[in-house]
Every structure is written in structure tokens, then in C-alpha cells.
């Protein structure tokens, strides 16, 4: 958003806001029976002496409300960057407490995490990378076909995007893996998974490419025509190179989304991250350990890719102001 230069009084300094927040937290904690929850256990040394359950809940709720309100009041005094770091840290800590309350076996995670990275993360990344490359080609073909004056091309492309955007990816994966062998070609799990992912994401990206192409001003087409360029040269030399600037950033976004959707190909037995998360913990009933490990690995991957994407975006903008 475009910030105004006006300095408004901080909301987190206003007694009315702080009081209201405290009241809401207190009420919510009371209604949810905070005294009986794990939080009650944490405060047990203090509140245990209060034998009446209702009194215990009130005490816990009051503590919670005061702690929360004091917290936002204090963080509110920091500059923006400090606020972001402080809140991130707090949310992360809460997350860790939440995970820790599952009573996880960290030694079990320790024995499996290496394999989950070398086999799972690696497979996830390369399946996604190959798929996004194919999806890029499908999107290029789909968007130019949709914008062409050729009825066949328009029909095939719009049928393609309609089907692959309209059907759940999971069903597409099954249809390709189980359906193509009916035609007499046996496909392995990884090629089938790559095919499904790239066709599906190609369909989404067709729309991104189409918007990118249509955003190029009419004058660029007219100048190309007036110079006598053929339609093919106009597209390949003038229009597409310029639309790439608008297409690359959302494509990065799609890649991050695909990284997570690639977990769906685990259903056909590709040994990627999700498949390992489901199978590695099974023998010892350590499902949560493996799921949480996979969640953290996916998150870390996306985090790295987000950084890469932000960097790319900056570079593309610098080249063309």
C-alpha cells in the first residue's frame, strides 16, 4: 500500500483498544475453559491451590489476557522491522510449543531426516523443476493458440485449459497413470506424475501468459507491422520478449505452488517427500514425526524459492525500469 505521511496515534497505545483486546481474550479464554487446557497445566504451580475449576479458569484467562495485551503494547513501540521480527519469533515459538506438545521422538526424526532429504526433497525438487519447464512450453503454446485467429487452435487450447483447470489434479494423476496403460503404453510413476503436473500447471499458466501477451501495448504490434515484420517475427522478437518480464514473477509463484502440489504424485508411488512422510513412520507409528518433518522441509524449500523469486523480480525490473 502507498503510505500517507500523516502520523496517527498508535492503536497499541490506546487504553480503549488495549482494554477491549484484554476483554476479548479474557472472554474467549473463559468460554473455552482455559483452566482445563494444557495452558492451565503450565500455570499449575500458581493456580493449583485454587481448587474450584471455575476460579482456576478465571485465573488462567486473566493471566493470558494481561500477558497478551502487555505483549502487543510493548511490541507496538518498536519500529516496523522490529515488530515484524518480534511477532515472527513469537509465532515460531508458539509453533514449536504446539509441536512439542505432541511428545515427538526427535531421535526418530534424526534417523530419518537424512533419507527424507536425499531421496524425498531431491525427487520433489526435480519432479517440480521438470514439470515447470514443460508447463512453460504448454503455456506458451496454449496462450498463443488461444490468441490466434485459428479456430482449431482456439478450440484445442480452450478445451485443454478448461479440462485441466476444471478437474482436480489428483484425478488427473490417476487418469494418466491408470488410463494411458489402457492404450497399450505403460508409463512409470515419475513420467506420469510429471505429465499430470505439467499439463495442469500449463493450463493455469496459459492464462498468465495470455495476460502477459495482451498487456503489451497495441503500438508495439503496429510498429512491427509498419516495419513489415511477419506475424511470427512480431510475436517471437517483439511481443514475447517483452511479456516475459510480466510472466516470470507469477511463474515463480506457480513453481512454489507446484512444489507442494507435487505431493499428490505420492499416490502413485513416486518416492518424493510426501510419500516418504507417509511410509517412513508407519512401522513404528511415528506418523506425526514424519509429517512434521515433511512440513518443515516443504516450508524451508518454499522459503528459499521465495527469496530466489524476489531476487529475480528485482533483476527483471532493473533491466527495464
Amino acid at each position: 500500500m502507498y503510505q500517507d505521511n500523516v502520523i496517527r496515534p498508535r492503536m497499541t497505545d490506546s487504553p480503549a483498544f488495549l482494554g477491549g483486546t484484554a476483554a476479548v481474550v479474557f472472554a474467549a479464554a473463559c468460554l473455552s475453559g482455559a483452566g482445563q487446557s494444557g495452558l492451565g497445566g503450565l500455570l499449575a504451580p500458581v493456580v493449583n491451590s485454587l481448587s474450584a475449576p471455575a476460579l482456576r479458569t478465571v485465573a488462567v484467562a486473566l493471566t493470558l489476557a494481561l500477558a497478551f495485551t502487555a505483549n502487543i503494547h510493548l511490541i507496538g513501540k518498536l519500529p516496523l522491522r522490529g515488530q515484524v521480527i518480534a511477532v515472527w519469533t513469537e509465532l515460531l515459538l508458539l509453533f514449536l510449543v504446539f509441536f512439542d506438545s505432541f511428545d515427538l521422538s526427535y531421535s526418530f526424526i534424526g534417523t530419518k531426516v537424512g533419507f527424507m532429504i536425499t531421496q524425498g526433497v531431491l525427487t520433489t525438487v526435480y519432479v517440480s523443476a521438470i514439470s515447470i519447464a514443460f508447463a512453460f512450453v504448454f503455456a506458451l503454446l496454449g496462450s498463443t493458440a488461444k490468441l490466434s485467429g485459428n479456430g482449431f487452435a482456439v478450440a484445442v487450447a480452450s478445451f485443454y485449459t478448461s479440462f485441466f483447470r476444471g478437474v482436480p489434479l489428483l484425478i488427473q494423476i490417476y487418469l494418466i497413470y491408470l488410463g494411458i496403460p489402457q492404450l497399450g503404453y505403460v508409463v512409470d510413476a515419475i513420467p506420469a506424475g510429471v505429465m499430470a503436473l505439467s499439463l495442469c500447471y500449463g493450463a493455469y499458466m496459459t492464462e498468465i501468459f495470455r495476460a502477459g501477451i495482451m498487456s503489451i501495448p497495441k503500438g508495439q504490434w503496429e510498429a512491427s507491422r509498419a516495419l513489415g515484420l511477419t506475424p511470427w517475427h512480431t510475436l517471437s522478437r517483439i511481443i514475447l520478449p517483452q511479456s516475459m518480464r510480466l510472466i516470470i514473477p507469477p511463474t515463480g509463484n506457480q513453481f512454489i505452488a507446484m512444489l507442494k502440489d507435487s505431493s499428490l504424485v505420492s499416490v502413485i508411488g513416486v518416492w518424493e517427500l510426501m510419500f516418504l512422510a507417509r511410509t517412513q513412520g508407519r512401522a513404528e507409528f511415528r506418523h506425526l514425526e514424519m509429517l512434521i518433518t515433511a512440513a518443515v522441509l516443504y516450508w524451508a524449500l518454499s522459503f528459499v524459492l521465495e527469496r530466489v523469486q524476489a531476487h529475480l523480480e528485482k533483476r527483471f525490473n532493473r533491466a527495464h525500469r
Partner: protein
Amino acid sequence: MISPTAQPSTALLSPGPLTTGPIVSVQDLKKWYGPFHALKGIDLDVAVGETVVICGPSGSGKSTFIRCLNLLEDFQEGRVVIDGQPLTREPAAVAAIRRSVGMVFQQFNLFPHLTVLENLMLAPRLVHKTPEQEARATALAYLNRVHIGAQADKYPDQLSGGQQQRVAIARALCMRPRILLFDEPTSALDPEMVKEVLEVMGELAGDGITMLCVTHEMGFARRVADRVIFMDHGQIVEQGPPGQFFDAPQHPRAREFLSQILSH
């Protein structure tokens, strides 16, 4: 005047006419946008080397008219012959006409992802299959001719409006057209940049290339034009040599237009 650094102009222009007839011939050109009758029968012959300025109030159809001449706009009726080639909507005819007609736009329409030099070399390389060395030499010669040889490796965004428009003129010239169309070439420019573009256009007119300019620059029209055409409501209302048009306009609408445009 041609700058002393430029090559002799005859070396840079296309060979002379094969016939002595008009190089542009338009008969009864009519165009509709849906129910709106944009051009109501335009007749115009332009001689080789002639500089024609087309003026008129906005919405009079002057831009539409010159955009019809290289089929950036289509038209429903009438006959257009350019350099001996009848203008139809057939690809070969359109390609031939676009090869002999260059165009300069109000918004420059340079290719922002290419450097100035690449902007100039692209079409000769792709359309004329000119070897790279030759295309580069031609491009540099024309850049010098529009007085911006030093900017060859910059991107269009790094240039001022006036410089960009001169690049656009050089880009059109690199295709060695026989006719140049200008569609309000100075309307998007800051006032202090108008002069440098008009000077280049004046030099071109002096070199004998055939020019059709849609412009509101009446000083330029008076100095450079061989003929001024006044359009209103999709018709040519009045035409004549600039002296006659500016000093003794016949038609009331032309008189009104001139009094408004010259009084400010």
C-alpha cells in the same frame, strides 16, 4: 539542412521513380467504424518527393486516413495505389506496400527491450535479410543523420522524448521506404523537444523523400510543406500550397480552425 557528418543523401535513398505518375493515389476512400462514417470519400494524389501536411480538428479522420495507407486500418470502399502497387488485404500486396511505406507514430512505439541500434537493425535483418555488418552501418549512418549517433547502445527509456522520436524516424528510414507517414509525431513531446524533431523532418523533406504528415505544427507546415490539406468530418475540405492556405483560406471551417490554432 543535412548535417556535414551525414553521407550524401542520394546514397541513402531508394532509387528514383520508374513512372512519372503519382506515388500515392487514393480514390474515393470510405471507412466506417460500425455506424460511424469516419472517412467519407477521400481523393488524393501525391507526387514523388512531395511533402503533404494534413491538418484538421481532432476527430476529423486525418490519422485514420494515413493509417489506411499501410493497412493499419482497413477500409470498406475506395482504391489506394502506392508506388504502383494496389492496396488489397492480400498478404503479398500488404507486405509490398509496408516495405515501401515507413511510419512514425505519435507515441514513438520503439521496442523497449532492444537498444537503439537493435531497434534500427531488426527489421532490415528480418525483412530485407540484410547482412549484419551492412545493417549496422546503415543504422549508424541514419542515427548520425538524425544527430544521435552517440546514443546507439542505449535503451529507448534512457532517451528523451525528442531523441526517441528521432530514433523512430531513423528506424523507419533504415527500411529505405519511398514514402514516410507521420502520425502526429510531435504531439506527445515536451515543447522544447518539438523543434529538434521538426528540424529532422524538414531535412528529410529537403532530401526529396515523399512525406505525408498529420500534424498541428502550422509553422512547420508553412515552412516545409508543398501542400496543406485540411480535413473535417472525414472529408478533405480544402487544400493548396501553404501560402494560399494560411493567408487566404477559402472554406469557413478552415478559417475557423486556423483562427483557433494560430491565436493561442
